[in-house]
């Protein structure tokens, strides 16, 4: 099919009104055509507006859902991210291979601004702990550099307790920073979000060897843009 023919199918495709072979052809096309991907996303938003029914969610169904959820999460959640069947995620990350393992690592976010440090409280505690970690013999330190030189430091102790010293990051307008840990095999995990410059505590799996920061519009499960700063823990 030509591009025009595929494009003509997008409306029917977006509402599951195509045959299987046509759906497969559009799937393949969407992987390489951002414009058509954007159109399908918009058409689905339109369909969603039509679908609003105003009905309440049935209570009995929630009871069944909640009773079948895992009672206790495993310490590390390993989830193989497969290539999407319908929409390809645009990950411009160098390390993003066909398979990305998302490790859900719990994040402790303690404050956001350097100003808070001077006022004491929780941030001062984090800053002191971060300084301790910097001089600890068991800690690995990464100097995160971007196009403008060194912008931040991350330190991770042997027990996985980490600190991010990002007081020098530019203040963002309507966006956030997100911190990522990558292993040498290319697995990427979100370590948490940073509303602005500051010192933060986080925990990271010991296998994390590279720390990166991206700018995001909102918290995401995998980076949507290239890192603004990257550093290797050593």
């Amino acid at each position, binding site marked *: 099919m030509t591009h025009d023919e595929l494009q*003509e*199918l*997008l*409306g*029917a495709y*977006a*509402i*599951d*009104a*195509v*045959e299987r072979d046509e759906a497969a052809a559009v799937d393949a096309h969407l992987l390489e055509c*951002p*414009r058509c*991907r*954007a*159109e399908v*996303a*918009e*058409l*689905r*938003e*339109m*369909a*969603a*507006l*039509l*679908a*609003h*029914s*105003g*009905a*309440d*969610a*049935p209570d*009995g*169904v*929630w009871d*069944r*859902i*909640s009773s*079948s*959820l895992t009672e206790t*999460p495993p310490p590390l*959640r390993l*989830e193989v*991210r497969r290539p*999407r069947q319908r*929409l390809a*995620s*645009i990950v411009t990350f160098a390390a993003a291979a066909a398979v990305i393992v*998302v490790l*859900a690592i*719990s994040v402790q976010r303690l404050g956001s601004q350097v100003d808070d440090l001077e006022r004491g409280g929780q941030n001062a505690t984090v800053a002191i702990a971060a300084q301790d970690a910097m001089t600890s013999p068991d800690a690995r330190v990464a100097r995160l550099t971007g196009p403008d030189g060194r912008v931040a430091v991350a330190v991770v102790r042997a027990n996985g307790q980490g600190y991010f010293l990002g007081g020098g990051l530019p203040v963002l307008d309507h966006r956030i920073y997100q911190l990522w840990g990558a292993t040498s095999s290319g697995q990427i995990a*979100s370590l948490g979000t940073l509303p602005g410059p500051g010192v933060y505590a986080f925990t990271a799996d010991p296998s994390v060897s590279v720390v990166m920061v991206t700018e995001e*519009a*909102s*918290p*995401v*499960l995998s980076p*949507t843009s290239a890192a603004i700063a990257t550093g290797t823990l050593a």
Partner: protein
Amino acid sequence: MPTDDLSTASDPALVVAISRYHQDALAEAYRRHGGAVFGLARRLLSDSHVAEELVQEVFLRLWNQPEKFDPARGSLRAYLLAHCHSRSVDVLRSDTARRRREQRDAHRTAEAGYDIEHEVWDLTVAEHVRGAVDALPKGEREAIHLAYFGGHTYREVAQLLDEPEGTVKSRIRSGLRRMRDTLVDANYIAFGGES
């Protein structure tokens, strides 16, 4: 994320919390969107019991594979509804008896000039969406209705309406795009990016 924040958290933030095994976040997502998902499944399947099973499946997938939702690609509600619609259509198409009945019913509905606007949920949304739907030529409105709520392929819709397949295919796309343009012009919705 503390539970207290969940009711004011954005949908993407809820999904991040879900990926960290916060059951309360899934409960909040269900509270926000469960009704719409159930309504769509029941509408397509004409069977509350099967619809409930599908709703369960949709939210369990969100729990088990939260990374499949990409906030850059659209809203959580549209994502959940698209999954629900796709699965409902699978059920319909795997059930030939039901399929024949649905086709017959859908045809009757189309002939009776069923108003798509009856599907909209509350007055605010209804007002805007009704305007957008009213602005559609009848052919586009019928084609979208039969395909989306009847679960028919555009080829089946073409047979039902006795129109050429290519015409129906084009009308589904042009109708949805026309709705979008109307709603954007009314400043009811905004889209970023290209297109």
